[in-house]
């Protein structure tokens, strides 16, 4: 988890020019860090590459739009990292 968070925080800091020390596991990517949807595509690209996964952004967005999930579930960084860990594990199990 900490390793995943460190990687994600570094990606966000470098991609969006946000000071690394302001990014915490409880940071909300949108509400706290001010990352918009276009910048998040860059972050998703970097995460996809770094972890060898495909973040299901469309599914997440649809769930939020449909009221089936909150943005906190996917965009608070500790939750985002948990999703990433799940995707990495699922990929490993499927390999």
């Amino acid at each position, binding site marked *: 988890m900490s390793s995943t968070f460190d990687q994600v925080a570094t990606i966000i800091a470098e991609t969006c020019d946000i000071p690394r020390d302001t990014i915490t596991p409880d940071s909300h990517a949108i509400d706290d860090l001010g990352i918009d949807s276009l910048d998040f*595509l860059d972050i*998703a690209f970097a995460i996809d590459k770094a972890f060898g996964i495909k973040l299901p952004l*469309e599914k997440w967005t649809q769930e939020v739009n449909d009221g089936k999930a909150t943005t906190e579930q996917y965009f608070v960084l500790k939750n985002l990292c948990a999703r990433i860990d799940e995707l990495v594990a699922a990929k490993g199990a499927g390999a």
Partner: protein
Amino acid sequence: MDLQYFRLIDRILDLNMVEKTITVEAQVPAQNTIFEGHFPGYPIMPGVLLIESMAQTSGWLLVALLNFERMPFLAAVKEAKMRGFVTPGELLTIEASLVHEGSGYAITEAKVKVAGKLRSNATLTFSHIPFPNPDLRGHMDAVAKRIGFPQQALQP
């Protein structure tokens, strides 16, 4: 090219669904009002139109890879470089390749060449969504026919 209607692609030369690459051809018109302003006495193709031509080329690659079920929209332009002037009457060969296919977005790299020499290149990000309405889908079908989109490349 029909600059006024932003029809910048004339013909698909090659579409490789395995390599995820496309090559198209585009004839820059010898005369156009755009060249009267850009620039008087020294006409060159505006860089923004070269970027658009690379975007349209990439877009057709993505339309194919998405099995003509989704429409890509240009979202970001990175590392765009105008390496040499493109002048009226030149024949462009534009290549694009898929760099990454994400969820609802894709990234391509594209190049504009004239007689094999690189004139411009860029890294482009697209978001893509299901065709929002039948009109747009019908328009894309018509353009596909005009530029020789290989329908056989699509999955049944």
